């Protein structure tokens, strides 16, 4: 579903953030991208949601060949992805509920469907009782749950999470990790960039990709025959 083939991303000043990287993340998988700071994790994710383009190689996402994609088609791709960041990226002047509804409003969902869909995902992330609270009235873990709800509300095929627990304490981290596993169990693929090795070890069944200086140095499924799949 997400396939990197010989992907290089060169930055003129800092050099290659990603070097000839190839990997394949399949439908419904739970995958980790790990590596030290600066290894290229965020770069890899940015190439998937087209905040960035490869200098070489090909990135295929859910049937879209991103290299030849026109800027006008990017929104269609992004509506199939859910994206979560370390710093939550919530709108401070909107309640939890409004933050989640925002996604549906700006992607043209029918007005009558918005309320129920928002409540469904807020319930899924365990925040139904705090729907009316503003981000500043929520803990870090709760804010990240709102962000995850927002990412889920359009029923994405994959949830991209860039160090989603980076700003959280241990308890909140475990809560969020469990939530991501639950989401994965219900069929959504999860691709998580992290350098939290404890978390990686606690889920040995997950697909693990390790980056070092922009190169893939380990891929737990790398030797498996690459099967073409229909998007």
């Amino acid at each position, binding site marked *: 579903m997400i396939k990197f083939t010989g992907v290089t991303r060169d930055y003129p000043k800092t050099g290659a953030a990603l070097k000839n990287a190839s990997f394949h993340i399949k439908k419904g998988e739970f995958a980790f991208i790990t590596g030290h700071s600066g290894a290229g994790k965020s770069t890899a994710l940015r190439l998937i*949601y087209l905040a960035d383009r490869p200098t070489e190689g090909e990135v295929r996402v859910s049937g879209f060949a991103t290299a030849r994609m026109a*800027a*006008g088609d*990017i*929104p*269609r*791709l*992004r*509506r199939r*992805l859910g*994206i979560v960041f370390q710093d939550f*990226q919530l*709108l401070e002047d909107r309640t939890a509920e409004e933050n989640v509804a*925002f*996604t549906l*409003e*700006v*992607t*043209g969902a029918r*007005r009558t469907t918005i309320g129920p869909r928002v409540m469904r995902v807020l319930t899924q992330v365990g925040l139904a009782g705090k729907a009316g609270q503003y981000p500043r009235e929520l803990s870090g873990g709760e804010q990240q749950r709102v962000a995850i709800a*927002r990412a889920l509300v*359009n029923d994405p095929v994959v949830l991209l999470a860039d160090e989603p627990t980076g700003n959280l304490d241990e308890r909140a981290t475990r809560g969020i990790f469990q939530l991501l596993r639950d989401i994965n169990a219900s069929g959504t693929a999860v691709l998580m960039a992290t350098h939290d090795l404890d978390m990686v070890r606690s889920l040995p069944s997950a697909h693990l990709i390790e980056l070092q200086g922009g190169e893939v140095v380990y891929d737990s499924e790398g030797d498996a025959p690459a099967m073409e799949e229909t998007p």
Partner: protein
Amino acid sequence: MNLVLRETALAFRRAPLLSALSITTIGFSLFVFGLFGLVAVNIERAIGSVAERVEVVAYLKRGTPIETLALAQADIEAFPEVARVEHVTEAQALARARRDLTEFQDIFQDLEVNPLPASFDVRLKPPFRDAAHVAEVARRLQAFAFVDDVRYGQDWVEKLDRLRDIAGAVGSAVGAAFALVAIIIIGTTIRMAVLQRSREIAIMRLVGATDTFIRLPFLVEGLVKGLLGGLVALGLSAGAWALVNQALLRSSFFTPAQAAIGVVAGGLLGLAGSALSVGRHLRSV
């Protein structure tokens, strides 16, 4: 669409002072434009009333048969430039001279033979009352065999032309300058609005809002501000006109159509300003 309007209303509610300020500023710059417009309207009217008198007179040879003249008159009336042809007979010319030139009444009174020639007095349609067209009509009249001489106020027709050109040039220059000012003002307020909402825009992009959708509220905001600025300018112009009319001289105001065009132009300037600004600044957030 609903959402776009809601977002626009929100933009005004979020920064009411800034919105009012930018509308007023746009209003004032369009007002200056409006003042020049009023001057132009009045000059054009004055020119128009003078130009109405633009007349080409073709003096006719004595003894031309009346049937020839009747046919020719119909021909001339069929010229596309011509509004009306008046056949002034020798007797009518004399009567006119007696009436108009009272100082010479005695001379005209004592005449034995009428020295005045008959003529065709040709009036042109409004769009053709300029030097080039007048000369062209005169040339064609001269070509008739029975026409002795053709006269028209070549001098002042040309002066009229020049006056029109100058008024037009000054008007266009001032108009362009203040249109630019309005575009820049709107562009700046839209720029602030874009920066103020940069987080929202970034998130909109991330969740897959289309570019059109992101732009639309800003374009509507620019359009609405331009329209409101246009209305402010119209109000100020009306006030200024009322003052001038009362204190100085009778003058005319914009026709309703001209006023509407002015306000719509304000809206379009607003739209242009925000389109330019939004395109440039969205790329940077």
